[in-house]
């Protein structure tokens, strides 16, 4: 109801509604945000599903992501081509997973990807060290970092392979009820 918009066809909006946790208005608003990042590149008319991607540099300058220590990892986890450029599909997907209606399991999968810096499907010690550095602005000494990472692996690694697999990570998340509310970005 309301004004007829010509950015998306009705069928496209239905598809987006079914595949994400957003309503029509929110999807149109997201398109507005996507458009204003690069008005010369992003078309207003998306009815033909144009193949437009915005590079990572533009996306990580969004106010919602600018100060986040993990902004590059977040954007590359949702990027389809793996290089950090997001099409509108990926953009909507990213904010859908980070919205408050996404279930815990889905958020856990993407949180695992974000913290997995070397993308080997495991959070190994190097990944944990990088995470710790990002969280504390590299103000811990090297031996403090090693100590903390060892403690983390000791606590969370259940099957004893020295790194955190997805099952270990999910088990840890299930015991932290705050995860759902902290792993959330409002757009």
């Amino acid at each position, binding site marked *: 109801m309301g004004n007829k918009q010509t950015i998306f066809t009705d069928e496209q909006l239905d598809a987006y509604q079914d595949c994400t946790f957003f309503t029509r208005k929110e999807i149109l608003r997201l398109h507005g945000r996507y458009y204003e990042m690069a008005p010369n590149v992003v078309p207003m008319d998306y009815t033909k599903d144009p193949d437009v991607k915005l590079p990572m540099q533009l996306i990580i300058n969004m106010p919602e992501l600018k100060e986040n220590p993990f902004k590059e990892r977040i954007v590359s986890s949702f990027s389809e081509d793996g290089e950090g450029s997001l099409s509108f599909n990926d953009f909507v*997907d990213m904010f859908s997973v980070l919205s408050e209606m996404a279930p815990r399991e889905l958020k856990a*999968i993407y949180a695992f990807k974000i913290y997995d810096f070397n993308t080997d499907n495991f959070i190994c010690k190097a990944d944990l060290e990088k995470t710790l550095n990002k969280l504390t602005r590299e103000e811990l000494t090297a031996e403090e970092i090693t100590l903390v990472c060892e403690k983390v692996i000791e606590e969370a690694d259940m099957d004893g392979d020295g790194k955190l697999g997805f099952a270990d990570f999910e088990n840890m998340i299930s015991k932290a009820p705050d995860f759902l509310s902290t792993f959330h970005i409002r757009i």
Partner: protein
Amino acid sequence: MPEADPVCREEEDLVGSLASMSSNERIKAIQKMPKTMRKKREIRNKVLKERTKKSRHRGAQWTQGAPGVSFRRFGNALSEFFQQLRPWHKSLKIIGAEFGTSVLSYFVFLKWLLNFNIFSFLINFGFITIPQFLAAEPNNLSFTGLELLTGAGYFQQTVLYYGFYTNATISKVENGPSYNMQLAYIFTVGIYFVICFLILLFSMARFFSSNFRLTKAFSVNASKLLCTWDFNITNEEAVKLQQKNLLTQIKEDLTEVNKEVVNFSVMERFVHIATHLLAWVVSLATAVAACAGVYFLSINNLKLFMKGYSNDLQRQSAMLVLPVIVSLLNTLVPFLFSWLGHLEKFQTPGQHIYVTIVRNIILKISIVGILCYYWLNIVATSESQCWETLVGQDIYRLVLVDFIFCLLGSFFGEFLRRIIGTTVCVSLGLPEFDIGRNVLDLIYAQTLTWIGILFSPLLPGIQMIAFLIVFFVKKVSLMRNCQPPREVWRTAQMTTSFIFLLFCPSFLGVLSVTGVTVWRLKPSEECGPFRGLPSMYAAVDEWIQTLERYTVSKWVVWIYHNLIASELFFFIISTVVLIVTYLYWQIIQARKTMIKLLHNQIINAGQDKKFLLQKLQREQRAKRRSSSALGGRGQQRSSSSYHPSMQPAQEVPGYPERAFDRNQNTSHNEHPFSVEISSSSDFSPGKQLR
């Protein structure tokens, strides 16, 4: 292409299984898939094609999906309509961006409570007040400005209070449809409370199910590193502060002496326990003293009221003494409690917060309790003309003065404290937003409103306006005066506890007060919709008796006599509920044991793997030695023959590998163990379940 075949087959299976689900389940399943958006849309289109094919097969049959899908669309459109309240969204985003999820939870809670008041106001206004306007008596009293504060005077003869409502059956047209005010009043209030009960119950259950953990093992360090970073915070200063706090916490954890190991001497432990005991005694004594003070003050007030006042000014001021004293107690005694908390040395700051909140709850419950006792036992049986209106006026004044004190508290507690903290005494610094205290104040205000609904039907409207103003004032004060919290505040746990508090002492207490009023107390003879009846509930009894005359409504009468008014039915239901609860309890215990067993199984599997790999290493080394002796011919064969046995060991249990099809450049380390065989790495042993 042979590699694409298993992929295609899996996709076909997926599409097939999705097509056979109902549309709601299908949409939920698609939303949950961790694939790229493009893939999801493709799958969705394929599924829809599959469904149209199937429905065409079955002929022009009504497709099962259509009503489900349109219902969801309707739900979406409705939520879009309510989202017109964009001002909420923006304020919440700004607050969350600078202060994080913990402070945000207060404002979300306030917004949620506001909905209860809006709903109550709308139905009370619609079903009770508007009909009353049609049968209103003229108001002869004069209006002076002071009424806004005291609620008496001019307001006494308005729709604000119970006393003004008529007990007649209103009908505009002769022999036309009539509107029974008594039934309307009691049913509106009753249905509102039933709906609130259901909403609170379901919210509480939802929060408990998502936040309650069965197993106690809580990995502090791991979750601190990986689960606590607040992605909501987007303000540069706040992010730096959060990083600094995390750094401080980690450093403290690393350098602290293991607290559990330190053994206190017997003397020290005795002193410890004595301090705790003394603090509790002092808190309880303060609560009791506060209650006694409130009680005697109110009785005094009532006596003076019945005697009559010498002049108008004395009357007005006397009415305001009680609410002001109650609000002062509510504001100042918590300071005493937190000072007591500082004196006692708690082991963790979490315990300190918890104990202070419990003491505040005890104080507030006792004050509300004593007031209810006073209202129901003393005022109701006094010889005043219209005791319900008196109670309504009392509650109105309490709500209003509490609101004023809330604003004053914000002014003094945050604004002045900031001025002091930045100019006079710089070591204090900026104040922090005290989430626990503010939420308890909200719960207290809401409890008063709920109690007052029966006596003053438009009170929720006043509380609604008060909450809106409080939201705005608190937000402005927060942004200007406060700094982000330094201590860890377990948001999910605390929110669950607050909703539980809202349900258990607060709402259930209100239900019992309202129940006693409706069932046991005699309404006043001269005012209100229930004048002349032995109790308010007698109106329903009379209505049921009139229904008995018509055969059409005999089933209503049957339900009333055998289900609602019969004790046997409630006894049977309670027994059934207790049995079901006991069964679920046993299931929970069994699941806990299962979790422990599975955990141990994983650890054992890890140790088995380690043992097998070490054995493998030994065998390989032995073979290499023997084959190098033979001239290196057997080496190739031996190393390759071991690979098939490695396959099952490195499969990540239960995790869909397809989820990583996003990053095409993932270096799928297919055989991590084979690599580490040659480097003979050391595996850390699995952790035993404590």
